């Protein structure tokens, strides 16, 4: 049993780390070379085009669900409409080349999983962005943002994290190495915990029935797990794929969709940058939407 646990645990870790590194490196390059002013300049005025751009900007700026929040905060301050900003915040970690490639690799014989993940995630991002823009017309940002656990402070004390980098910067190569390292190790901790939980569930859950038998409970369990494990959107597909034998497709999709949209780690970042009412509404809305859509899909198309 211990051998089984360790083999599965280590396999998930070894598989995930290279993708985590690639994600951390790209996030670091974007962080160091692209500021939110550039993104704001290219944002169109037409609401439809804004939404489309918000959906697909992750293809150019593949940030994870944690790293995107300070960027979005800066965009809202600089006047980007709330609908587009929230849609972008939710969509970028999901609709970006690293996440898409990782999902393809994790589900090599199930390309429809990639399509379902992208389409359902995009729909939830658009809907949540629209609802939030209707519910919140006043400023949703906190006056003084809390320190971000997004490991972007280059070893310095946490500071107002507008990513303007008005503090004294070291050489760019050093900045990239340090930022990549911090991102890699920060998120890597959660990967290790996620892999351990995944391996434990694989060796202790019964082969049939139990939690894997009921659609409502297994979907809720996997969605909660996706939220709590906080695995980076660049690597979570591999962990999700390891659950396939234990759970049917709908619960695995719940894990795959909730994980890049919201998790406990980015909720902490959200709470540090946005007002509590907005943070609570956003998290609850996304969580309930993912669950309802998948349950509906399960009822219509089967488990």
């Amino acid at each position, binding site marked *: 049993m211990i*051998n089984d646990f360790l083999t599965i645990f280590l396999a998930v870790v070894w598989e995930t780390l290279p993708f985590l590194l690639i994600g951390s490196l790209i996030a670091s390059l974007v962080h160091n070379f692209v500021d939110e002013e550039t993104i704001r300049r290219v944002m169109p005025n037409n609401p439809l085009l804004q939404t489309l751009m918000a959906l697909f900007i992750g293809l150019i700026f593949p940030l994870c669900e944690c790293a995107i929040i300070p960027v979005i905060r800066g965009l809202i301050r600089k006047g980007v409409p709330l609908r587009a900003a929230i849609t972008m915040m939710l969509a970028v970690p999901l609709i970006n080349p690293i996440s898409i490639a990782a999902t393809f690799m*994790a589900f090599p014989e199930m390309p429809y999983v990639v399509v379902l993940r992208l389409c359902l995630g995009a729909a939830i991002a658009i809907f949540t962005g629209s609802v939030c823009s209707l519910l919140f017309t006043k400023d949703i940002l906190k006056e003084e943002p809390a320190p971000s656990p997004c490991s972007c402070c280059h*070893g310095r004390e946490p500071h107002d994290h507008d990513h303007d980098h008005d503090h004294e910067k070291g050489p760019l190569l050093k900045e990239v190495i340090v930022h990549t390292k911090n991102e890699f190790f920060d998120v890597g901790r959660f990967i290790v915990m996620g892999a351990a939980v995944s391996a434990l569930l694989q060796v202790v859950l019964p082969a049939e029935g139990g939690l894997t038998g009921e659609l409502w409970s297994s979907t809720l369990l996997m969605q909660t797990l996706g939220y709590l494990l906080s695995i980076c959107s660049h690597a979570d597909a591999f962990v999700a794929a390891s659950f396939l034998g234990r759970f049917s497709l709908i619960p695995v999709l719940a894990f795959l969709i909730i994980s890049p949209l919201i998790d406990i780690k980015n909720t902490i970042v959200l709470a540090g940058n946005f007002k509590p009412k907005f943070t609570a509404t956003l998290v609850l809305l996304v969580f309930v939407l993912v669950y309802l859509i998948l349950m509906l899909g399960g009822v219509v198309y089967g488990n």
Partner: protein
Amino acid sequence: MEIKSQLKKVLPPLLYALMLGAYGKLFLTGEIFLYLRPRYAYLSLLVMVFLVILIVYSSYLIIKKPQEEGDFKFSYLILCLPFLVALLHTPEMYSEQTIQRKKKLYDLQTAPLIAEEPGESVENGIENQLITLDREHFYYYLHEIYIDENYQKYLHKPVIIRGIYFQDDEYFRENQAFVGRFIMYCCAADAVMDGLYLEFEGDHPPVETGEWLEAEGTLEYGETLTEGEMPLVRVKEWRQIDREPSNYVFPTFPEYMEPEN
């Protein structure tokens, strides 16, 4: 406080070296391929290069900038844990429970041709060739039989299968057992046990689950305890064989075999 500060500077290169050493062990012993499919295993070289860069960078900081405060967080030690385990752990055969959990189940939709007589075969272009489910052709034939449901082509043909023996009264009829291998899609975590049912004339052989067996017979079609009617090997001869270096095969056809396969 001073000790903590010093630790933050000295620990990182040591930990990066530990991580690099663990990766080195995995590649030198070939154990990495017991965890990962080769095409994904080689991506780990990126992490190894990154670790070398970090070792050089953190050593440079210690030597050239001893006054600069280190940015290492002690919670980073969590990521070092799997590397430490990897240095001490060598993956072995899965337990009986995990083999059972990982067994792939099928629900075949295509019924065999009823009119067919034993000894005859449907039109398939395959003469009485020996079908060998060895490491190289294991996935190919299983794909033919279960995924494409082309098993009619192989009914009544001589077949040899080599793999991990699995018998459990709860899941198999008295005179039936199973021989399979783990099909690894990406990593050991997503591996599934796949193979063919065996049917013996009398009792099943005195082989323990998890041991390796070579069975020779013909491919037939029969009732199983948990999966209904399935293709199975009616065994004429069997022999226990040595365990192969890897329990895994990859979902690749012979012409696209990965180098380590």
